[in-house]
């Protein structure tokens, strides 16, 4: 069934788009990531203009994250205080990021930046996660006890001022690291058009060393707030949010998301992390490859609006 999109000004196949929503939503629910880093490249490959793909998929990210955060929230797995603090940093970062993105697009360098960021960030994070989780899996197979973290937490994290208690996360630390992480992720999220879960989750696990049980719920909560702000900003500043496209994607997404949450209970955390690491690594390499592969046509039509 073909449907004409009022903002993208082209027609798309509804079932294809809803199917994409289901698949990405399933992965979001499974891993507690927004899924934007998977959806944007696919939408662009299907011919949706990149600016519209990035802005409209925010609806999908928002819906699946809301649905997931409510499911996780009921089980008291969301650290509201930590999440709100990070989101505060994230909103400031997102506003800065949207402006940087506008300038880059006018210079014609936006897709270079996106490709580089995907390659470096997803490549690095995917590689680290894969390495770490494979080692953990191997140890359990050999019957050894899980590896203990080498040092407890970075010392400088404790020497910073403005300390605050985060009982749900089991932390008593300065507010500066969560704010800084939120800000960085906000900028990157706006530049790459993603929610930023794949950055927040490792930062919470490896840097802040939050209690593992609250990591996924809290990152989702933070993603909801940041994405909400980004979506409104995109609609107001760039007029690139296609409500119809967003609706189709998110209908598939919420169904897939709930299925993903159910499936998540059947896997062990280390196994999930191996799979997520491979997916992140592949997405990064796939985007990064565009820098090395000779283009089919050296000329490209760039978006004119914004």
């Amino acid at each position, binding site marked *: 069934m073909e449907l004409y999109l009022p903002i993208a000004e082209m027609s798309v196949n509804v079932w294809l788009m809803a199917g994409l929503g289901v698949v990405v939503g399933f992965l979001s629910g499974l891993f507690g990531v927004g899924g934007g880093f998977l959806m944007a490249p696919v939408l662009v490959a299907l011919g949706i203009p990149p600016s519209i793909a990035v802005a409209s998929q925010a609806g*999908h990210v928002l819906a699946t994250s809301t*649905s997931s955060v409510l499911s996780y929230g009921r089980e008291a797995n969301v650290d509201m205080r930590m999440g709100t603090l990070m989101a505060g940093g994230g909103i400031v970062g997102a506003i800065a990021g949207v402006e940087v993105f506008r300038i880059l697009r006018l210079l014609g360098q936006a897709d270079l930046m996106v490709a580089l960021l995907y390659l470096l960030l997803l490549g690095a994070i995917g590689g680290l996660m894969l390495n770490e989780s494979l080692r953990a899996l191997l140890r359990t197979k050999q019957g050894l006890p899980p590896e203990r973290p080498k040092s407890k937490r970075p010392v400088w994290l404790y020497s910073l001022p403005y300390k605050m208690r985060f009982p749900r996360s089991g932390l008593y630390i300065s507010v500066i690291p969560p704010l800084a992480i939120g800000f960085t992720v906000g900028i990157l999220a706006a530049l790459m058009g993603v929610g930023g879960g794949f950055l927040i989750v490792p930062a919470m696990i490896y840097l802040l060393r939050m209690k593992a049980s609250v990591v996924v719920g809290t990152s989702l909560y933070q993603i909801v707030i940041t994405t909400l702000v980004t979506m409104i900003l995109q*609609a*107001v500043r760039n*007029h690139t949010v296609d409500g119809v496209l967003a609706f189709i994607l998110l209908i598939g997404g*919420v169904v897939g998301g709930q299925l993903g949450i159910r499936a998540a209970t059947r896997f062990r955390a280390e196994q999930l992390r191996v799979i997520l690491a491979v997916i992140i690594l592949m997405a990064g390499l796939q985007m990064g490859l565009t820098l090395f592969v000779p283009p089919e046509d050296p000329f*490209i*039509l760039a978006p004119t*609006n914004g």
Partner: protein
Amino acid sequence: MVAASLPPETPAPYVENLPVAPTIAPDSLSTDLTQNRIEVSSSFQGAKVILYGAVFQPKDQPSDVVVIIRGPRASMRLIRKTQVAGLWLNSRPVVFEGAPGYYMAASSQPLDRITDFSHRRLLGLGLDYIAMDTSRENKVVTRYGVKDVVVNGLESDYLDWRRAVIRLKTKAGLYEDNPLGVRFVDQNLFRAEVTLPSEAPIGDYTAEVWLFRNGQPVGYSEKTMTVEKVGFERFVFNVAHRHAWLYGLACVAMSMGMGALASRLFRRG
């Protein structure tokens, strides 16, 4: 892309510059379109419009017909990928102005057999002669001792860039040269098919029909056609542009609402 941001003047000023214009007798040609308003609704997947017309021609002097369809003008930004240290990087974008968002040239035989270069160029017949310029690349220099000469910064690369615009637009189904697109149904009656893809720009289109005899334009007729969004599509587009805050909030509310609904449904189910 956005109809409202286009310059208000209508395209096709070419007739005025035409040296042979006085000899044209408009009554020797009569044309019409099967549709002059194309509604873009949610089921829009492109449209096919037939242009038909009649010529009053003597039997011993057969004439040729050229049909030019031009969509609303839109500026385009083009980027070239260049390899720097093994990486494919983007150049600075070049802005093309004045080119139509849709262009089709249909004729009863290849254009170079119908008329000469200067007519094709003057009237903008065929993809090679679409008027577009890169005025933002222009700079004022001193050449051969002459001050204030305006030259194009792209220099000899200009043709490569121009050809790229046409190649990319053709690939998207928005530009077309169809040397056999005008078919004579009988001696005096002809028809041409205009295929608009679903990506066709929204706005006003013109259909220029030229009648050529012995390489000279002897007849001209112009019809207009509008492609516009209707119903829900129009509503969404208007709200998104006129009440952007409201639209953004509505999209956010819809997304979060659907998410909350799903989590509630699945809990019970």
